[in-house]
């Protein structure tokens, strides 16, 4: 199943800078990630910044006949062991919390979706350094 990284296989970092539904950025990033994985490339990390952190709440309830972006990302992460990172500073401004952060900030609940984790901006820079290509999806 695993194949060695060939000369043409790349290690991608992906940045998502807009929230779901208002902008197409998250849809495009998701489709890019899937296409890259199908071609045998590696996704080093997906970093969610600005309103992009809103992709990481499990509390979205889109209409049944529409795609569920958060669930798509969570399922892709599960299937491919993707590292989905939500920026902590951007997340705190916008009310995206994991259990630890909720406790630390004295909030009564958390909303981080499965497969996402909250971490710092250093994860974005590190992805830029370690990836062969960093692809930014935004407005």
């Amino acid at each position, binding site marked *: 199943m695993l194949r060695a990284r060939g000369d043409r296989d790349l290690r991608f970092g992906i940045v998502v*800078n807009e929230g779901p539904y208002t902008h197409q950025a998250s849809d495009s990033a998701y489709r890019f990630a899937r296409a890259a994985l199908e071609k045998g490339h590696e996704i080093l990390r997906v970093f969610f910044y600005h309103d992009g952190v809103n992709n990481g709440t499990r509390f979205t309830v889109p209409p049944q006949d529409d795609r569920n972006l958060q669930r798509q990302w969570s399922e892709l992460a599960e299937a491919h062991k993707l590292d989905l990172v939500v920026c902590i500073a951007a997340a705190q401004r916008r009310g995206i919390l994991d259990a630890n952060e909720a406790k630390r900030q004295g909030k009564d609940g958390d909303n981080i979706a499965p497969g996402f984790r909250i971490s710092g901006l250093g994860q974005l820079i590190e992805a830029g*350094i370690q990836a062969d290509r960093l692809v930014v999806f935004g407005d």
Partner: protein
Amino acid sequence: MTGQSKRKKFLYINRRAPHGTIYALESLEVVLIGAAFEQDVSLAFIDDGVYQLMAGQDTSGIGVKNFSKTYRALGDYEVRKLYVERESLAERGLTVEDLMPISFEDEEDDYAEKPSILVADRSEMVRLIAEQDVVLSF
């Protein structure tokens, strides 16, 4: 492998006015965090992004933080190359005189104070972008 061999060219492109959206502020937050990684960092200011460097900014009327002073501190973070697009200034009736003076101390030249702002033509911007390893656009 040493850290030096992994040093990459990072360019942060700022395209939007400092206020009205959060992009400028959150871009600056990436630049400040990124400085700790000791990469080869440049900033570019194009389109309304040139307004981010305007002198005499006053946000008291809109109730948001005035973070413009942070640009003047970038030299302390080894961020010394701020490219401002000439055409973007001209299209907005601005000259470099309208921007904040921003400088850095060059430790290889007896700590001489040197300007960080470099005005570049659109064609030079194209070249600058093409030679980067990582381009983050805000």
